[in-house]
């Protein structure tokens, strides 16, 4: 039952909000309650998985492989917990930043539906069900992106939807072929049956279909161009949750299928993943260097950071995958926080353009500090969380003798630092240009507190992971061991069916 709660709890609260469609005040409160409840359920699920191993739930008492199984191993549980934390931060943040117009058109129910979709994708043990959750996510994210209906938003939304539909179509085609090959859609059952199939070329082909489909979702080279085209258009709260979570669902799916299902020809597939990782890192960071809009810079950095996670997967050793997982944990928190800070900056100055910004450090030294924590962590400065994440991935690369990718990743780290200093210099350090229009935070003190609360919360988490990384890393390592030992997963899912 604990496995179903992260999915049905946001669903339930979304329905309640829809019943009180015109009462936006109630929406705000219910949204907070729902997000807080999600954290509780997520932590319960996590401690359960941590204590007693992989949890499986067969929906509707239809036993695997015939019904849909929900499975939570450590990776899923970690992702659920982070999702709930980010969901909560965004829920709080949107109280101060989302305008009444969007609230009236159902911003909060959509947010909860999006979270339901994300949680569903993390929990499902059925590859077709994963497709369904992707669609739930896609539909609600599309509306969130387009809500407000400005020209720029629609332009971004169209690119976003077109490419994601393309990815869904490829995904579906892949699922179809996979079903034709193995006659099952349950991931554990697929993992058990695929090695017995005497058609390795076909299997590799399907794995490439999945790589492209999830690659579009997670924005890897050369399929990332929809991301910087769309992520800077919606309000900050939406950008933040997109930046933090949506691409990571793609990365999670890659990690899932390329450690569980497609492991027949790792020399080939994981080398491709590694090459993609290198190019993703490099092209993302170079793209960021040429931008002068805070959110565009941050969007390009999502891409380069995705490269590190994929690099962990491509190296395919216990340490590397643990590094990749640790990277995801660190990255989601930090990236969401950077977007939230960006939103706060625009709330004060009324713009995201670096050229028009300046002098923020004088006005708001605390905001400067709150920007530096995630920014330096993103660049990988010790002792913040990003340092340990990069360190692990790099160490895994060195252990395996993959020096090219290590060199690329270190170089990219340097450029990331350059990018973050650019934002720091332009927005905080240099004198404010005279034509600056807004330079005061408009809004009451409560609103200010609401705006800063999630930023501080996420910054504290970043610092905690940095100074107290061992337990976090331990869990990442255990999750990686689970992933590299697919039999645990298979037995957990199919063992239940024999009872």
């Amino acid at each position, binding site marked *: *039952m604990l496995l*179903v709660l992260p999915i*049905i709890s946001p*669903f*339930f609260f979304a*329905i309640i909000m*829809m*019943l009180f*469609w015109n009462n936006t005040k109630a929406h705000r409160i219910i949204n907070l309650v729902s997000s807080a409840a999600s954290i509780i359920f997520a932590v319960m699920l996590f401690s359960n998985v941590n204590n007693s191993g992989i949890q499986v*739930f*067969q*929906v*509707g*008492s239809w036993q695997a492989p015939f019904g849909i199984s929900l499975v939570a191993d450590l990776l899923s549980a970690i992702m659920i917990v982070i999702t709930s934390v980010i969901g909560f931060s965004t829920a709080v943040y949107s109280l101060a930043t989302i305008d009444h117009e969007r609230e009236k058109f159902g911003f909060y129910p959509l947010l909860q539906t999006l979270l339901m979709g994300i949680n569903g994708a993390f929990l499902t043990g059925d590859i077709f069900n994963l497709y369904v959750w992707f669609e739930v996510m896609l539909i609600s994210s599309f509306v969130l992106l387009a809500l407000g209906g400005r020209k720029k938003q629609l332009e971004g939304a169209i690119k976003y939807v077109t490419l994601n539909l393309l990815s869904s179509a490829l995904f579906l085609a892949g699922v179809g072929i996979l079903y034709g090959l193995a006659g099952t859609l349950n991931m554990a059952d697929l993992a058990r049956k695929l090695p017995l199939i005497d058609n390795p070329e076909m299997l590799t082909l399907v794995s490439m279909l999945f790589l492209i489909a999830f690659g579009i979702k997670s924005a890897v080279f050369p399929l990332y161009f929809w991301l910087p085209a769309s992520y800077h258009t919606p309000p900050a709260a939406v950008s933040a949750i997109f930046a933090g979570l949506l691409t990571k669902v793609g990365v999670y799916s890659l990690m899932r299928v390329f450690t569980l299902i497609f492991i027949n020809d790792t020399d080939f597939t994981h080398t491709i993943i590694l090459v993609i990782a290198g190019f993703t890192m490099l092209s993302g960071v170079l793209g960021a260097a040429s931008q002068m809009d805070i959110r565009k810079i941050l969007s390009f950095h999502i891409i380069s950071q995705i490269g590190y996670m994929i690099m962990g997967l491509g190296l395919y050793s216990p340490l590397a995958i643990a590094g990749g997982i640790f990277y995801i944990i660190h990255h989601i928190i930090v990236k969401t926080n950077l977007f939230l800070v960006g939103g706060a900056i625009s709330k004060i100055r009324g713009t995201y353009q670096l050229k028009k910004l300046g002098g923020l450090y004088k006005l708001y030294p605390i905001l400067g500090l709150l920007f530096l924590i995630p920014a330096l962590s993103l660049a990988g400065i010790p002792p913040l969380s990003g340092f340990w994440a990069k360190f692990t991935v790099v160490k895994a690369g060195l252990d395996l003798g993959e020096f090219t990718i290590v060199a690329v990743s270190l170089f990219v780290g340097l450029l990331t630092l350059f990018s973050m200093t650019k934002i720091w210099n332009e927005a905080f350090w240099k004198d404010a240009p005279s034509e600056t229009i807004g330079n005061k935070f408009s809004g009451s003190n409560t609103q200010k507190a609401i705006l800063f609360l999630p930023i501080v919360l996420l910054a504290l988490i970043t610092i905690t992971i940095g100074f107290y990384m061992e337990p976090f890393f331990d869990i990442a390592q255990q999750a990686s061991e689970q992933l590299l030992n697919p039999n645990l997963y298979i037995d957990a899912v199919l063992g239940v069916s024999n009872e």
Partner: protein
Amino acid sequence: MKSSLILATTVKYIIPLLLIFSFFLLLRGHNEPGGGFAGGLVAAAAYALYAIANGVEEAEKFLSIEPLKLFSFGLLTALISALLPLLAGKPFMTGVWLDNKIPVIGKLGTPIIFDVGVYLLVLGVSTKIIFSLAQEEE
């Protein structure tokens, strides 16, 4: 919008038939072709016909409940049907059936309640879309 007398008269007689047919589809759906989705579409078609004959505002009055409410209740019904098995001590979403058959309707169970939820949802969404589009035209 000018409406034709022939259409308006026919619609009066067709709508009850369509609605009854939609219930029929809903109830037989569990074991035979039909179900909440098809039933909901047929019911939505009835309201769409009414809107064509008498205008959208009249049709909204005729529906007498906001489409938005309708589909929220639909979702809620479906969720409740999935939660009911918990009361019977069975896992989430397990189909629970009453032992005795009821004449005409047949066996009652949570999947039927789920179908009712789908029916309401489809009816709500379709009428919402149809009414909005028709209003735009006016």
